[in-house]
Structure formats: structure tokens, C-alpha cells
């Protein structure tokens, strides 16, 4: 994984696996403080204290096809190898929250990558799940909340319809990725 956006996608996939109906993804950059943070919160099934304690171990996973689970360890590593911090909290039945913080200028900080593409993919490929994205850099901020989009479109038009996809693609670019002005 060479992009933070791919890590975000991977963590969000965990949320979907946990049966979340709402996933909130927040990106915040403060260039004057050289700080950038990513947080992913969901209302999925959460996990037990024992699971939480070992979840960043690559040899812990819930899937049965093999014994390794690299998603969270890689995300944790992306932050800690770039002068940042990593936190995960979870409560059974309530959901899970993962936050990673980065030093923007750190030489080992991965580029953000195609965050817009990841956001578009999550929104359009998961009909039963709502997403709320926020992006913030200094005094500029933007938001995409699929609950609002669904309220306008009504029941019969899916978010994955080609015309809606095309609109959302531009909307995400202007309201989320352009906020960072290519500096991440």
C-alpha cells in the first residue's frame, strides 16, 4: 500500500464487514502545525476487549481463509513510521473508531493518493450503507453525506447509477479533494 487513500479504503472495508450502516470518514490538515489526521468511525458490531488488544497484531484476523490480517497493522505502521500516532477504540455492539495522525513533512509519510476515487468507490458500491466524509484544511472545509444525497434522489435511483456517479465524482473533487489543494 503506497497511498493513504488505499489504507482508508481498507479500514472502511473492515467497517462494512462489521455490518456498519454508517461510516464516517474525516480528514483534517493543519499545514501551519504540519499535522494531518485521518479518522474512520463506524456503527458496526465493534469488538471485545481481548480482540481490541491484539487487533494490531498481523496474526490476528476474523477471516477464516488464512491466519493473517494486515489492514490495521499497515495503517498503524503508516502513521507511526511518519512521526505520527495511531489510536483505535471499540465497543461491542456500538462500533469502532480508528484515528491516525501524521506529520505532513515527514519523509516517510505516504502521499494521500486518490482519495476522491476511494470516496466515490465506497459511496457508489455499497447500496445499504451511508457514508459521511468531511475534509478540512485551515478555514476551508467540505462534506459529502450520502444521507442527504439519498434524501434528494429518493428510493428508486441508486447512488451507483452512471449519471449519479458522474455527478458525485465532480462533487467529491470540488468539495473534498480540492480542499487540500494537492498538498498532501
Amino acid at each position, binding site marked *: 500500500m503506497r497511498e493513504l487513500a488505499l489504507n482508508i479504503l481498507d479500514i472502511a472495508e473492515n467497517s462494512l464487514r462489521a455490518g456498519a450502516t454508517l461510516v464516517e470518514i474525516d480528514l483534517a490538515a493543519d499545514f501551519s502545525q504540519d499535522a494531518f489526521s485521518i479518522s474512520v468511525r463506524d456503527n458496526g458490531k465493534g469488538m471485545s476487549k481481548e480482540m481490541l488488544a491484539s487487533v494490531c497484531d498481523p496474526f490476528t484476523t476474523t477471516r477464516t481463509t*488464512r491466519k493473517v490480517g494486515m489492514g490495521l497493522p499497515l495503517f498503524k505502521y503508516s502513521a507511526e513510521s511518519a512521526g505520527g500516532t495511531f489510536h483505535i477504540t471499540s465497543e461491542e455492539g456500538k462500533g469502532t473508531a480508528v484515528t491516525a495522525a501524521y506529520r505532513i513533512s515527514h519523509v516517510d509519510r505516504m502521499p494521500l493518493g486518490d482519495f476522491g476515487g476511494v470516496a466515490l468507490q465506497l459511496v457508489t458500491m455499497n447500496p445499504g450503507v451511508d457514508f459521511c466524509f468531511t475534509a478540512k484544511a485551515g478555514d476551508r472545509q467540505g462534506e459529502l453525506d450520502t444521507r442527504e444525497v439519498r434524501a434528494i434522489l429518493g428510493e428508486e435511483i441508486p447512488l451507483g447509477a452512471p449519471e*449519479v456517479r458522474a455527478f458525485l465524482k465532480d462533487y467529491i473533487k470540488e468539495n473534498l479533494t480540492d480542499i487540500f489543494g494537492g498538498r498532501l
Partner: protein
Amino acid sequence: MKSLEELRALREKMKSQTDNRSVAGSDETVIKVGMATCGIAAGARPVLDALLDEADKRHLHNVSISQTGCIGMCRLEPIVEVFKDGQKFTYVHMTEDKARKVMNDHVVNGNPVKEYLIGEN
């Protein structure tokens, strides 16, 4: 700046189209792309984007493209599964170009791209 208000206009425009689209039904092709850590790290996102792009370009309304979790053969990722004519085809080690070829030859014209199928390599 684009605003969500534009969606209202879009909805009105689309309402008239939804009817003829639902007719497609029975001969639908279902395509699934593995999108777990293994798939993402191997480059499943560009593959998925290429598939969607081809479907858009060709106005393929009887094709449903979705993502799935770990298919179980991480070393063969990116994996694309095509369900067509009651059969399942598993394409492995996919790239953007291969994905476009599969859309073109298999999904549109009905000829599976044998050299990309699992078991062939």
C-alpha cells in the same frame, strides 16, 4: 462549486430512463472484484475503475459490477469474478488493460479470455 441542488434536476431527468433499464433483467452479467487488504495492495482499485469505465463508455446496463471481500487466494490478486450464462469465470493477476480486454471480449462479445483465467497461469 457543485451543489447537491443539481441532483434534483438530475433525478427528474433520470426518472424517465429507469423504466427501460429494468427490462434487461435475465441475461445480466455480474462482476465482482476482490477488495480486501490483499486485493487493494495488489492494485484492485484501478482494475475496478477500468471495469466501471468500460461499462460506462459502452452503456452496458445489464452488467452489475460490485466489490467483495477476500476471495481466498491472496497471491493471485487482483481477482475478478465474472458470472455469465450460469457459469463462474475467475480471472487472476488482473490489470487495467486485462480488465478492459475482459469487458470487451467476454462480457460484450461472449468469448472468455482463456489466458487470464485461473488455472491457465
